[in-house]
């Protein structure tokens, strides 16, 4: 049963992602990416990562992707015309395929690295908000703070870059 779920999510994710990078219409691309996000969220759930799954949907699919959509609509982008990457395209696919071989070989040989996953997923509360929250404010206090700074910088940056009145379109 689990395997079917896995296969379902996996196939949806891969198919949507491949479709996304092939799709010419940017709006469809965004939607396809959201599909990928949701499938991944499903996989997270299967991995006992409820909190992350929620975040994935709420923040990633919900907020970030909407931002994409927003910008695309703002710029009123139409379909992408035929690419100029005549050589680049097949080369890129080939390279990605080639790169897949060692990476896949690497991860397939891993097989847990001598560890076996705990059957109950690491005990009660694994992947739940409380446990994560505790860790965030103890062990991972510093990274969280840095992340806060990061967000601040991003905000400032985005504002600085897009502040109106300094640049007119097509200048």
């Amino acid at each position, binding site marked *: 049963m689990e395997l079917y779920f896995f296969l379902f999510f996996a196939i949806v994710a891969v198919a949507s992602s491949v479709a996304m990078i092939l799709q010419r219409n940017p709006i469809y691309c965004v939607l396809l990416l959201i599909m990928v996000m949701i499938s991944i969220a499903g996989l997270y759930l299967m991995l006992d990562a409820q909190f992350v799954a929620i975040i994935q949907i709420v923040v990633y699919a919900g907020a970030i992707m909407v931002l994409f959509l927003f910008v695309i609509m703002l710029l009123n982008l139409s379909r992408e015309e035929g690419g100029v990457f005549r050589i680049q395209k097949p080369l890129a696919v080939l390279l990605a395929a080639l790169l897949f071989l*060692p*990476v896949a*070989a*690497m*991860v397939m*040989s*891993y*097989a847990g*690295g*001598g*560890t076996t996953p705990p059957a109950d997923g690491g005990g009660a509360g694994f992947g739940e908000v*409380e446990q994560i929250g*505790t860790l965030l404010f*103890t*062990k*991972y*206090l*510093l*990274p969280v703070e*840095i*992340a806060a*700074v*990061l967000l*601040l*910088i*991003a905000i*400032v*940056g985005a*504002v*600085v*870059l897009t*502040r109106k009145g*300094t*640049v007119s379109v097509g*200048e």
Partner: protein
Amino acid sequence: MNTALPVINLYAVMPQIVLVSAATVVLIVGLFERFRKGIPYLSLLLLAVSGVVAVNQLGLGPVPFSDVSSMMVMDDFGLVATLVFIAGAVLTVLISISYAEARSIDRGEYYALLIYAVSGMSMMAASTDLFTFFLGLEVLSISLYVLIGFEQRDAGSNEGALKYFLLGAFASGFILYGMALLYGASGSTEYEAIARTLGGERSDAVNLLLLGGLGLLLVGIGFKISMVPFHAWTPDVYQGAPTPVAAFLSTGSKAAAFVVLIRLLGSVFPGLQMEWIPLISVLAVLTIAVGNVVALVQTNLKRLLAYSSIAHAGYMLLPLMADSQDGSASIVFYLIVYTAMNLGAFGVLAVLSARGAPCATLEDLAGLGSRRPLLAAVMAVVMFSLAGIPPTAGFMAKFYLFSALVHGGYVELAVIGLLFSGVSLYYYLRVVVWMYMRPAAETPAEAAGRLSYTGMTALCLSALAILAVGVFPSELLQLAERAVMTLP
């Protein structure tokens, strides 16, 4: 729920805290138009304060951030690196002032982001965990994306920022995936844990994962230090970025990546030295070769300096092979000197560009020797230093670096490196030739008026420092040696 609160040493991250606060203060003050002129000086002051904080902590030994997980550590290595970044930032601010005014980018955010970037670099330097490193890297990168694109009106600035952003994010993806693999292999992202896994008995599978992870990290860090073949962005971005930002980019961000490399490899390298040496040495030599050879045919000064900085990254990669304290110390020393040199070089361009037409190509330098003797002298000193001619610091740095390499037993690499540095002379000297031995075709726009005092101060300072270190390198050498002493 019984949660034991960890013991936290805020003291251990004091420099980073001070830097972030400083940046935020600058940001806030910058919102007020009436303080506009004072912002750079405020930035300088705050940077100085952070510097003092860092200096005060020197020698207080390794202090981890908390007892639960180290994440960051306060040690001489990180502090020295931080000081270098701060010094670089100070010089950058100094050369920015007139340039920023001329380009109307003299806003609080500019300086704030500069200091944020420094804080990011400082975080990278102090990190002992991949995650803090990654976050520090992002702090740095995001600040830089904005800084590079700061000249909104300028298509080049925009293009550079976009390129740097896309490739930087791409590289971040690699780093992240590498971190995931490393996490999978060792169950943690701390350097020490990774080193332990490497050092202990391990299956081939884990081994592969570790190596793969490190390989991906290498791609990401290689991108930051412009190692061939991850260097392609460098000239475009330097050319597009506002000149002071390019200076900062070529020194600070590269230095930060190197610092991480030293710390990371210092921990994990003993476990895989034999396996990595051929790869890194080939890449290093390629980096040196590509940087120098392409710089030969450049006429755009910023691109020329970009390729030169690629070549210098190659030199700095070499002593990693030696895997010795000397090697690491030589890189630190080289970084310090390199910071002064490259800031000097870009600084000259920035100061010149602040007046009228941008100083872009070699031809623009024609006759500078008689038009602006002091500026030309600074540029000459810097060029000779970059070329590694005594009595400049560049020579000492190269000497120390290649010494460490030879002492590690890599004479052939040293010879190759030295020969390519001979090639590099050609383009460094071409700059001098244009300044001193070619008359200007017509009087350029920048010929009129005074150059900015602050910029000239910064340039003279760095030129003097280059000469002083060239003649009396002892103190700085000791500092570099002391810095790496605390590394494992």
